[in-house]
C-alpha cells in the first residue's frame, strides 16, 4: 500500500511538473514570438526588404528606341571603362572614348531614370530611381527593388572604403544596402530626401533636399543647417551637390557653396550662385549656373571664375564652355564634363577650350558637323505624337515644342518659341493641317510652318488647350477642350463656347470623343453629353458607372466608349447605357490625359506608372505591357500600319504590333 501511495504521489508530482514545464515553454514561446514580432516591426520600420531579379541585357525583338539629344548626368570609371548615366540609358565608353555599349530599356533596363553611380570591388552600382538599384557585374544586371517602390527610390550612391554601399533615397533617407535589405543608417537621417552622397576614408557628407547636410566623421554625425549653429551654417537648407576629401567637405546649395573643416564651417564661396556640381580634386572647383569657379584659398570670400558659360542654349563648337554641366570628372590630362548637351573635355579649365567627347565612333562625322542624326528627338519628355497625311511624324514635347520628321527620319522642322512649347495634343484637321494644343494657345501648323496661333483674343475660351476633336461634320467643325470650358470652331474661327453655366460637369475639360450623334466631354467632374448642340446630361460617380469623376481620356472601340479616369481605371459604356468596369481584370489606376488610342480591334491605354494596358476586343482580353519602356509613365500613342509609337516621359519607343 505504502509503495503504491508513493508511486501515485510521485506520478502526481511529475504530472504537475510536466504541466508547469509545458506552461513555461508555452509562455516562453509566446514571449519569443511577441519579441520577434516586435523586433521585426522595429526592423521593418528602420529597414526595407528588397527583392531582386536578374537582367541579362539583350535587345527586345520588335522594339526600337528613338534617339534623342544626349543629356549626361553622372559618370564613373569601372574596369577601365567610362560608364555614364544619361537620358538615353547607361552608356559605356572605352579608354579611347568610343561608345562600346548602350544599355537601355529595350535591353531590359527598368527604365531611363538613372540617378546615381558608384562602384565597389565586384560591381558597378546604378541608381534606377523609383525602380530601385541595379548591380552590374560586367555581363548582367541585377535589379534590387522594394515591394513599395517609394520605400527604395534611389537618389544617390556612395561606395564606402569598407565595402559598404550607402544608398540615398527619396523618402527613407540614408540606408545601407545589405542584399536582401536596406537598413537605415541612423534615425536622424531617416525619412529625409537625400540629394547628395560623397565621402572617403575619413568622412562622408549626406546632403538633403530641405534639411541641409549631415557629416559623418569619426563615428559621429553632425548636422549643418542654414540657421546658425555652433559649428556654423550653410547658405541654404537645400543641398544640390557635395564633395569630400579627407580634411574638407564642400556643400553646394542653390545659393552658393560652403567649406567645412574639422567639423566647422570655414567659409562660403560663390554666394548667390546655384551650385550644380563640385569636384574636390585635383583642386576644388564648382560648377555654377554662371560658369565654373574655383574654390581657392587666397580669396575665401569670392570665387574666382574660371570659365563662364553662355546662357543655356544650344551648344556650339569647341572654344566655348558647355552650358548645363551636371558633373565634372578629372581626367589624367584634363577634365570631362557631363552636360545637358552631351560630353565634353578640356585639358585646362583656365584655357576654357572644350571639345565634344565623341560618343560613337560611327558618329564622328556627325559630331564634327554638329548635325543631329535621323529621328533624333529634341527632348525625351514626349507628350503627343501623330502622323500627318504625308506620313510625317510629329512629336510634341512637354515643354520643348515639337519636332516634325519626314518618313525617312530627317528632321523637317523644330517648332519652339515662347508660345509653342508646352504641347499637349496633336490632331490632324480635315484640311490636313495640324492642330497643336498647347498650354499657351492653339497652333495651326502645316509640316513646316505655323499658320495661325489662336488665343482668347481669337475667341478661345482659355488659352490652356488640352486637346482638340474633329466633330466630323461637313462644315468642318471641331472643338477645343480647355482648362476653362470648351470652344467650338469652324475652320479657324471660334463660334461658340461652353461653360459650367451651360451644364458642363466642370470647367476643367480634359478630353472629348464622339460616338454616333453625341459628343462626350470628359471633365474633372464627370462626363457631359452634348447632343444637337445642347448639353443634355452629365455622368458622374453618383449617377453612372464611372468609378472616378476625373475623366482623362476617351476612345471609341466598336460600339463602346472607353473611358480612362484618374484613379478609377477604365470603364466603358454602350449606346444602350450598359456600363462595364474593368477593375476586376486590371485594377484601379491613373490614365494619362488623352493617352488612349484605338487600332482596329485594340485599345491602347497609357497609364501614369504602370505602362500600357492593351485591350483586344475580339478576345475580350487585357494585356499589360511594362518591359522595354523607357518609363512607365506612358503619355501618347501614334499608330502606323504595323507598329505602335509609344510616347513616355522619358522617351519614344516604337513597338511592332506583333509584339502584342
Amino acid at each position: 500500500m505504502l509503495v503504491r501511495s508513493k508511486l501515485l504521489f510521485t506520478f502526481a508530482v511529475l504530472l504537475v511538473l510536466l504541466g508547469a514545464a509545458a506552461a513555461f515553454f508555452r509562455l516562453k514561446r509566446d514571449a519569443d514570438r511577441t519579441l520577434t514580432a516586435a523586433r521585426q516591426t522595429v526592423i521593418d520600420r528602420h529597414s526595407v526588404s528588397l527583392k531582386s531579379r536578374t537582367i541579362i541585357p539583350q535587345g527586345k525583338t520588335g522594339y526600337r528606341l528613338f534617339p534623342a539629344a544626349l543629356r549626361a548626368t553622372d559618370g564613373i570609371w569601372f574596369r577601365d571603362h567610362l560608364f555614364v548615366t544619361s537620358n538615353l540609358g547607361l552608356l559605356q565608353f572605352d579608354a579611347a572614348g568610343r561608345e562600346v555599349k548602350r544599355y537601355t530599356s529595350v535591353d531590359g533596363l527598368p527604365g531611363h531614370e538613372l540617378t546615381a553611380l558608384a562602384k565597389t570591388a565586384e560591381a558597378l552600382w546604378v541608381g534606377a530611381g523609383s525602380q530601385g538599384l541595379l548591380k552590374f557585374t560586367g555581363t548582367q544586371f541585377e535589379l534590387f527593388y522594394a515591394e513599395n517602390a517609394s520605400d527604395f527610390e534611389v537618389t544617390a550612391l556612395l561606395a564606402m572604403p569598407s565595402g559598404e554601399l550607402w544608398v540615398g533615397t527619396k523618402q527613407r533617407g540614408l540606408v545601407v544596402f545589405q542584399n536582401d535589405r536596406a537598413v537605415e543608417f541612423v534615425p536622424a537621417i531617416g525619412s529625409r530626401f537625400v540629394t547628395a552622397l560623397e565621402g572617403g576614408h575619413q568622412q562622408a557628407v549626406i546632403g538633403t533636399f530641405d534639411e541641409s547636410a549631415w557629416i559623418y566623421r569619426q563615428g559621429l554625425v553632425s548636422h549643418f543647417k542654414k540657421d546658425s549653429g555652433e559649428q556654423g551654417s550653410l547658405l541654404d537648407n537645400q543641398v544640390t551637390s557635395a564633395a569630400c576629401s579627407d580634411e574638407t567637405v564642400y556643400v553646394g546649395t542653390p545659393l552658393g557653396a560652403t567649406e567645412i573643416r574639422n567639423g566647422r564651417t570655414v567659409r562660403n564661396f560663390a554666394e548667390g550662385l546655384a551650385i550644380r556640381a563640385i569636384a574636390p580634386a585635383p583642386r576644388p572647383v564648382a560648377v555654377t549656373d554662371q560658369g565654373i569657379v574655383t574654390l581657392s584659398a587666397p580669396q575665401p570670400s569670392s570665387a574666382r571664375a574660371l570659365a563662364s558659360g553662355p546662357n543655356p542654349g544650344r551648344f556650339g563648337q569647341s572654344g566655348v564652355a558647355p552650358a548645363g554641366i551636371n558633373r565634372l570628372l578629372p581626367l589624367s590630362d584634363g577634365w570631362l564634363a557631363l552636360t545637358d548637351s552631351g560630353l565634353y573635355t578640356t585639358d585646362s579649365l583656365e584655357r576654357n577650350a572644350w571639345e565634344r567627347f565623341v560618343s560613337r565612333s560611327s558618329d564622328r562625322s556627325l559630331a564634327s558637323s554638329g548635325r543631329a542624326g535621323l529621328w533624333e528627338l529634341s527632348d525625351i519628355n514626349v507628350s503627343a505624337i501623330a502622323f500627318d497625311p504625308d506620313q510625317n511624324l510629329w512629336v510634341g514635347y512637354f515643354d520643348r515644342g515639337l519636332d516634325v520628321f519626314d518618313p525617312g527620319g530627317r528632321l523637317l522642322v523644330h517648332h519652339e518659341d515662347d508660345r509653342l512649347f508646352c504641347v499637349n495634343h496633336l490632331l490632324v484637321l480635315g484640311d490636313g493641317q495640324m492642330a497643336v494644343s498647347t498650354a499657351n494657345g492653339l497652333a495651326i501648323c502645316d509640316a513646316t510652318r505655323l499658320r495661325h496661333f489662336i488665343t482668347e483674343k481669337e475667341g478661345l475660351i482659355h488659352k490652356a488647350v488640352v486637346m482638340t476633336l474633329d466633330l466630323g461634320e461637313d462644315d468642318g467643325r471641331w472643338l477645343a477642350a480647355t482648362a476653362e470650358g470648351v470652344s467650338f470652331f469652324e475652320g479657324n474661327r471660334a463660334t461658340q463656347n461652353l461653360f459650367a453655366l451651360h451644364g458642363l460637369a466642370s470647367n476643367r475639360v480634359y478630353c472629348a470623343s464622339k460616338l454616333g450623334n453625341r459628343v462626350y466631354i470628359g471633365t474633372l467632374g464627370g462626363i457631359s453629353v452634348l447632343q444637337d448642340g445642347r448639353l443634355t446630361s452629365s455622368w458622374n460617380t453618383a449617377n453612372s458607372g464611372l468609378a472616378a469623376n476625373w475623366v482623362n481620356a476617351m476612345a471609341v472601340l466598336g460600339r463602346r466608349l472607353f473611358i480612362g479616369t484618374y484613379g478609377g481605371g477604365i470603364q466603358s459604356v454602350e449606346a444602350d447605357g450598359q456600363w462595364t468596369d474593368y477593375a476586376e481584370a486590371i485594377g484601379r489606376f491613373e490614365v494619362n490625359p488623352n493617352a488612349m488610342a484605338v487600332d482596329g480591334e485594340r485599345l491602347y491605354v497609357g497609364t501614369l506608372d504602370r505602362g500600357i494596358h492593351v485591350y483586344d476586343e475580339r478576345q475580350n482580353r487585357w494585356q499589360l505591357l511594362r518591359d522595354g519602356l523607357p518609363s512607365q509613365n506612358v503619355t501618347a500613342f501614334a499608330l502606323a500600319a504595323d507598329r505602335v509609337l509609344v510616347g513616355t516621359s522619358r522617351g519614344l519607343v516604337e513597338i511592332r504590333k506583333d509584339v502584342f
Partner: protein
Amino acid sequence: MRTPLLLFLCICSLLAPQAWGDAGVLIPSPGNDKPDPTKLSLADMHVSIVIDNQNASVSLRQIFASHMSSVLEGQYLFAINPEALISDFAVWDGPVRIPGVILERKRAEEIYDALRLQAIDPGLLQQAEQGEEGGSRVSFFSARITPIPPYGTKRLELAYSERLRLEQLQSYFYFPLKPRQFQEQAAGRLRVDLTLRHVLPLSNFKQTSAQYPLTIDRQTTTEIRAHYEGSNVTLSDDFALTYELKSPSNLSVLFYRSKEDRYLKSGLPVTAFERPGRSDAETEAGYFEASALFNTTASAAAKRRPSEFVLLFDTSLSVRWDKLERQFEALEKILYQLHAEDRFQLLLFNSKATLFRPTSVPATPENVAAALDFVKGSFLAGGTDLKQALQTALDNFQPQPGLTGRAVLISDGNPTFGTVETQKLARWFSSATATPAGPKIKLCAYGAGNGCNKVLLRALAQSSGGLFEFVGETEAAEFKLNNFVAHLTIDPLSDPQLTISNYPNFSEVYRTPEGPVFNQSSAQWVGKYRQPLRSVNFTVAARQLAGPIELKRTVDLPSEAVEHLFIPRNWAKARVDFLLRKIEMEGEDAASIGEIVSLSKKYKLVTPYTSFLAAPRSLLRPRLIKPGDPVLRVRTDPDIRTVTAIFPFGLTKPLRYLPREQVWQTRFLAPKEMVDGLYYCRLILRDRVGRAFEERKSFVIDSRAPAIQASVDRSAYRPGDTVEVRVKSDSDTRRIRLRLASLEPAEARWDAGGKASIGRIALPMEIATGEYALEVFAEDFAHNVSSRKLAIAVVGQ
C-alpha cells in the same frame, strides 16, 4: 498635358488674387500659404468704427505674435470693399512706425522697383488694372511684412473710409472677419469700438450676427456708442450691422473748416510722425456736405404698376467665369421678382443679338424658367457689340399700353465691336432714346465683377434716367442686388438740385454719388466755401409723381468746425471723380492729371495716376489656384534675367521667359503621392547684375469637388411651407446653392451654432403636389463643383 496630377494652376503674378482674402490675415513664411496660428497668431485686434452721418471711418490695429525661434516673414492680406478708400497703412518696426505714402504712380513704381532690388519688397496698392483673368488690383491689399522677430510681435495698422448708402431708410455696414479663403482665424483678444451718430434720429439698430454682441455704452436718439470685447474669439462671421433713420424729409448741412496747426490741411489728424503745418499758413477754404433725405408718404404709398422689361444679358467672352455667374444671379433675381401681370423680353448679346421670343411674354413661372433655360442653353462667344444689342432692344421694345417700360442691361460694359468709345456710345444712346416727352426707354444697368466699364454703364443709365449698380468681386452682392431689383419698378425722384444763397462764396460743388435718388433714400452734395457767413440758405428741390419736393435749411457758415473730419476727403474724392469722368469723356489733359495727383497726395487717394506705396510686400502675389494645369507663371520686373523653381518633391526647373506676355513660365509633373493640400515652391530669381532673390510661391492640389452631406428637415411639405436644408461640405467650399424646380435658387449659409450651412426655400402656395428633386450644388475655391439631389414630396393641404 501629360501629368501625374493635372491639378494646379500656379499663376504667380502681381495681380490681385481671385480668391477673397480675409480681413487682416498674416500668413507666415517660409512654409505656409495660409494662416498658421502655431507660428503666427493674432494676439490682439482692435477695430475702431466711427459712422458719422453715413460716413464710416474704420481703423484697424492688429498685433501678431510669433511662436517661432527664428525670424519670420509674413504676407498680410486685406480685402477691401471696392467703394472704400484706404487712407492709411503702417507697420511698426520695433518703436518705429513706417507709414504708407501716396505717390504718383510712375514714381511709386520706380521706388517700388528700387526697393525690391534692395530685397525690400514694398507694398503697392494701385487702382483698376486689368489682369490676365479679368481681375483687377482694386479692392485688395497685400503687403509683405518683415522681419517678425523670434517670439516677438508685429503690429500693423490700416485705416479706410467708406460712405454708407441709405436705401429704404436703412443702412448696412460690415467689416469683413468671416473667412472666405482661409480657415477661421482666432484672435487672442478682440475689441470693437463703435460710434454711430447722425443728425437725424437713429432707430432699429441691430447686428446681423450674434458672434460679436455689442455692449451699448451710450445711446441717445442721435448717437450710439457701443463696444465688444472678447478673448480667444473665433472670427467666424463678419461684423455687420443695420440701422434706420426715422425721419420725414430733411435737409442737413455739415461743415469742416480748420486753421489749427494740429490738423493737416487735408483734415487728417496729425500724428507724432508728421510735421504740423505752419501757424501762419493761409487758412484753407471750408468744406460742407449737404444731405437731403427724401421720405414722402405719397411715394411710399404708391402702388406698383405693372411693368414690361427688356432684359439685355451679356454673353460675350469677357463675362466668363465668376462674372457670368454673378450676372446670371442678377438675372434670376430680376425674373423671380416679376409679378404675373408683368411682361418681359430677353435678349442675349455678344457680337450678335438673339431674342428669347419674337415678342415679350408674361412673367409666368413657366416663361421665367424657359428664359433661364434659354440662357443656359446659349454659348459664350466672341466679342461684344453693345450698340447693336441696344439698337435691337430699342427696335423690339414696344411696351403694351398700361405697362411701364424698362430696359435692364446686365453686362460688364466693354464693347469690342461696332462703336466702342464710351463717349460716342453714350451720346448715341442718349439721342436714340430722346423724345420730346423724355427718354423713350429707361435703362437700368447692372455690372458685376472688377473690370466693369462703370463709366459707360453709368452714362447709359443716367442718360435715360435709369439707375446703375455695380457689385465688386469682394462684396456681398445681396444688399445692392436687392436694392437694384426693388428700384426697377419704382420711379426715382427727378434730378434733385441744390441751390445756395450767396453762391459766389461757394465753389466746386458736386453731388456725390451721382445717380437716381429714390424715396426713402438720400442725396448728398459736397463743396467748398471761402468765407464764414451768417444765414445762408440751402435749398434742395426735386420732383416726384405726387408733386414737387423742396427742402430748406438756413445755416451759418462757421469759421471753424472740426467735428466732421470726413468732409474734406469726400470733397476731394468727388473732385477727383469729376476730373476722371472729364478725362474719360474728353481725353487726358495735363492740368486735370496734375490736379488729380495733387489731390491724391494730399488726401491719400488711390487713383489711376497715383499709387499707395506701403510697407514691403511680396514681389509675387499668389492667386487663386485652379486645378487642371501644371503651369507655373511668374511675373517679375524687367531686370530679372533668370528664374528657377524648386518644387517640394525635388524637382528644380528653370522658367522660360515669354516676351509677348512678359511672364516666366514652366510646367511640372508632381508625383501622385502628393495629396490634396497647399504646397510651396521656391523661386530663385537672378537679376542682370547677378544678385539672387528668393521667393516662395504656393500652389494647391485640389482634385476633388466638395463632398456634400445634405439633409432636409422633413420629407413631405405643404404649399407655403419652408424647406430647410442642412448641408455639410468640405472646408474649402466657398459657395452652396440650392435649387428646387423652377423656384428662385437660395444660398446655404454657415451657421456656427449648427456647425453646418443652412439654406431655406419657401414653397409658393401654388406649387403642385408631387415629388421633387432638390439639388444642392457646392463649389470650392478651385471651382470644382459637386452636386447632390434630395427627394422631397409636396402634399396637399
